[in-house]
């Protein structure tokens, strides 16, 4: 135990003596947490629409007005030339082109039905689906209005109508930051904890001090613990800073237990730092450690469910996400912070993280060789 204390004292001295390092550990995450969640807004508004109106009738005018006044669409072009609208799509200026054909109003009355042409830029699939959805429901509404006007009231009123009331639990105003902040906080924690720990032992290998340690009678697990603990503590400091920002800046007050959050943060950090140390023991140089960390962190990042929903991934990809510790912690963070989930709700994730932590750290201790 006493040896451990000397190790810890040394590690902390080294961390605090490197201002560049401290800046990265403390200031970078704060700035990123202040800026980035505001970027992560999936809500689709301001869909750019170009309307090619070959009809120029009362109906086509009304329809255009209705689309613009819905608030979802921004009119970026209004002509009577489909090619112009198409060019706007090519230049990424428009997401949707709506073409109202010649004699739309007359044909609607004469033929009882008439087609409109909608062209959607689907490179961004979500935007296409959602924008298209909005447009369809506006068209449907307008259709209803026309019928109400043109049909005898008795006939119309007899149509069965299903009213839909929707409510959004846990985040009634659909504030995106509420969703992103806990996730981004976990991500930053991962980047910092993963990097620092992955680099640390390798650095001692490269400068040669590890030889000096290896020739001492120090126990392997004590040495690994001496590396593990400082990063866990630094991680908890970053986590605390992040939580303060979440509360003060974003007004996100965790619904669930703070204690449970910290318990999870602790278990997660043990797992993560174990992973970093494992990389460290497999690398000879910092460049190698960096390559490995980079490889894994990007995968962790994009497959964690932070940016795209895990549910929508193909089955094999969902299986991969189950091996990513980050995905568990992000899920749990959101559950505890936003929904106030209790320990029994997250016991499964807790168990998995504990198992991962044990495996990774044991592996790191075994793989760290004092004797080659």
């Amino acid at each position: 135990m006493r040896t451990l204390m000397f190790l810890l004292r040394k590690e902390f001295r080294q961390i605090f003596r490197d201002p560049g390092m401290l800046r990265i550990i403390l200031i970078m995450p704060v700035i990123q947490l202040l800026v980035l969640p505001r970027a992560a807004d999936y809500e689709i508004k301001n869909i750019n629409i170009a309307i090619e109106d070959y009809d120029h009738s009362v109906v086509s005018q009304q329809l255009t007005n209705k689309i613009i006044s819905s608030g979802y669409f921004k009119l970026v072009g209004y002509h009577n030339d489909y090619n112009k609208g198409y060019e706007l799509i090519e230049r990424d200026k428009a997401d949707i082109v709506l073409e109202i054909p010649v004699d739309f109003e007359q044909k609607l009355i004469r033929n009882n039905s008439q087609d409109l042409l909608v062209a959607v830029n689907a490179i961004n699939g979500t935007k296409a689906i959602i924008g298209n959805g909005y447009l369809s429901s506006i068209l449907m509404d307008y259709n209803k209005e026309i019928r109400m006007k043109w049909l005898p009231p008795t006939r119309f009123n007899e149509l069965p109508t299903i009213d839909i009331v929707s409510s959004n639990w846990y985040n009634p105003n659909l504030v995106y930051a509420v969703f992103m902040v806990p996730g981004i906080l976990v991500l930053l924690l991962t980047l910092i904890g993963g990097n620092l720990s992955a680099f640390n032992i390798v650095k001692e290998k490269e400068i040669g001090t590890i030889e000096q340690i290896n020739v001492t009678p120090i126990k392997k697990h004590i040495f690994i613990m001496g590396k593990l603990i400082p990063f866990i503590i630094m991680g908890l400091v970053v986590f605390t800073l992040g939580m303060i920002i979440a509360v003060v800046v974003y007004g996100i007050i965790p619904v669930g237990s703070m204690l449970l959050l910290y318990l999870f943060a602790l278990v997660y950090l043990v797992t993560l730092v174990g992973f970093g140390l494992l990389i460290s023991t497999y690398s000879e140089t910092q460049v190698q450690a960096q390559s490995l960390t980079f490889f894994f962190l990007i995968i962790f990042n994009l497959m964690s469910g932070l940016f795209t929903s895990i549910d929508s991934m193909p089955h094999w990809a969902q299986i991969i996400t189950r091996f990513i510790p980050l995905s568990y912690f992000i899920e749990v963070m959101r559950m505890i912070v936003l929904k106030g989930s209790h320990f029994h709700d997250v016991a499964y994730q807790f168990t998995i993280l504990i198992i991962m932590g044990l495996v990774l750290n044991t592996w790191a201790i075994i793989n760290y060789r004092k004797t080659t």
Partner: protein
Amino acid sequence: MKQFINFIKKEFYHVLRDPKSLLMLFGVPIAQIVLFGFALTNEIKNSNIVIVDNAMDNASQKLIYEIRASKYFNVGQIFMNPDQMDAAFKTGKVKLALVIPKDFDNDLQHLHTAQVQIIADASDPNTATTLTNYMTSIISDYQNQLWQDGGLPYSILTQQRILYNPELAGAPNFVPGVVAMVLLLICVLMTSVSIVREKEMGTLEVLLVSPFNPFLVIFSKMVPYIVVSLINLTIILILSVYLLDLPFKGNLLLLYGESSIFIVCGLSLGLLISTLTDTQQTAMNTSFLLTMLPTMLLSGYLFPIENMPLFLRILSNIIPAKWFYIIIKSVMLKGLGIKYIWRETLILSGMTVFFLTVSLRNFKIRLQ
């Protein structure tokens, strides 16, 4: 010139002799394109939902049948009790609940109106909105079925053309973004760390005091990464077209030209970071934090830029990946020519020149 080639040879040896670095240089892009090309999608399918059916009548059964038939939802249990619903949300296993009122069928037939409630777990607002939209459209379709029996006139119908990506796959949107991110990260990281490494080991001084022009020393460090990045780009393009079935509509030469500008831009940024940091660890962390998250979040491939607050929209302009993302989408997926992307090209070139000038100036200061 012979000296210069020797320097470049030395750098290639550094890069190629280390299998773990090779894993990063070639393994990362391949794994990521394949993984993310298939795995990332914004479409939400097979979401678990619950239905609280208080009616249990003919109409509610029919509606539930419609919902079950859609690919979007997995209808789990059918509950009666709101408390159970809350508990289900808290475990995170259920994303949406539909509450059908008592006497649903009866009300529809006689009062001609009935109200259903959709409750979404909005802790994830994106999923909540999307699922609510899906559910709404299923219910509307169901309502239309009811109406069709009435044979209504004056129907406005739509004919749709889905451009560029008719299957609405995630890949066309994400792959260009991942390409931009991977190229940038590798270039920035590798350059900054490899130069700082020589700084740390003291070998940079040796090179810089040699009679050889110091700028050529720096330049020779960049050459292997340009080559590696172009090889990577080729691998990525082949995978995208043959594995992910992405269309390649544009001019290949133009794409390589634009990519070269972007690669040099990344290398210059790496160079700049290397002049500002003294240890490999700091260089790596700076590169990582400066490129990874901002690229993911501000380049537009994960989140639409036009939705962002003004200051972020302004900030996004200094993200090189944003411009490259636009370029690669335009050239590759839409087949557009330089006429449409000259502005983006100019901006990327300007950034490159800026990074290079500042970092070379920093080096000069160091040398004096």
